[in-house]
């Protein structure tokens, strides 16, 4: 298998990752910002809350994702937006690694496809356990 010249041929992958990271972080920050604004609007102040409703507790990330999709046992009001922002933030690097996996599979770069697959598997499993 011929070695791919990173500089010449990985510009497409780097561009895709730039879009994923850029859109992910902007989208997540906006959701979190909406949560902060709503918290200010509903309370009239923006001090850091120590109330139990400000804490999120799920057995793992995918259970939280599942709860959000079904709309059951999820935070409400400002906390919902902050939770959605956190989910978007977590999915951003995961999406970037998935894009790498697809790219290396499409360019038939078996070595890096396997490396990326291992990374993706470890990350997915780590989000699914606990």
């Amino acid at each position, binding site marked *: 298998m011929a*070695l*791919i010249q*990173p*500089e010449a041929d*990985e510009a497409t*992958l*780097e561009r895709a*990752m*730039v879009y994923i*990271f*850029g859109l992910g*972080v902007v989208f*997540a*920050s906006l959701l*979190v*910002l909406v*949560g*902060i604004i709503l*918290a200010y609007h509903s309370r009239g102040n*923006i*001090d*850091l*809350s*120590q109330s139990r409703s*400000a*804490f*999120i*507790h*799920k*057995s*793992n*990330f995918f259970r*939280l994702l599942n709860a959000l999709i079904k709309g059951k046992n999820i*935070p409400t009001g*400002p*906390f919902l937006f*902050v*939770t959605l*922002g*956190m989910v978007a*933030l*977590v999915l*951003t*690097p*995961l999406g970037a*690694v998935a894009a*790498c996996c697809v790219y290396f599979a499409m360019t038939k770069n078996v*070595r*890096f496809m396997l*490396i*990326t697959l*291992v*990374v993706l598997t*470890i*990350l997915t499993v*780590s*989000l*699914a*356990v*606990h």
Partner: protein
Amino acid sequence: MFSVPVLIVISTFVGIIGALTGLGGASILVPILVLFGIPMKEAVASTMATIIATSSSSSVFNLTEKIANVRIALYLEIFTVTGAILGATITKVISPVYLYFFFAAFLLTSFMRVGIFRRIFLERILSSSKDRDGVARYLDLCGAYRDGIRKEKVSYRARNGILGGCGMFIAGLAAGMLGIGAGAFKVTVQENILGLPPKVSSSTSNLIIGMTALAATSVYLSCGFLNLMLMAPMVVGTAIGGIVGGRLLNRLSDSFLRILFFTVVTVLIVQMLSKGVMSVWP
């Protein structure tokens, strides 16, 4: 208790430092939060999301300017995540008291690149292998970027791929055992063992650190320590800081970045030693 706008400003500053040095920023933010009365576990849990924000936002510019190396990041990530998972697991069995001393000593290796230490240690121990090892050659761990200060193309080839992987495994152990992102360890390994340029080390470390922090998210979700209203301003601040830092990285000289890195590392060494001493003699 401090307010949300204050925390956004502090987080922005931490995000800039994190993007410039390759540190996630948790090791700076956690002591600040604890100082303001936030419980330790809550502070650590909430800063995990900010590491992802710094990593993702700074990677936008680091990848655009081709400073971060995706191949090297993916290769090293296998060792880091494995180390982090093992570290988190064995912390339940082994007391972390003496770890602080071990990792402080590990961080001291950052100074091996400075002056006389470079001649004594690096050139004798590591640089004797100037050629790339089998792994670095097999995976073609190399790259090039245009340096904004030197106005020239900088080409580099990673060496000591196996040793670098082992170093990143130890960095992952540090992250898992101490509940930190361990960006300082990662930059040290990439510069000292793999022989990468400072800007490539910082930006590639930033790319890796987001993935490692993501692996810790479920742990903190299941513990119930994640305070959404504490996390929210830090995410916004570090995202802004990461963007600013990412843009600045290629416009600053290597020597300035080194000074900034060594300053932060010195603070971290003192912090770890003091925690170690306080654990042994409370």
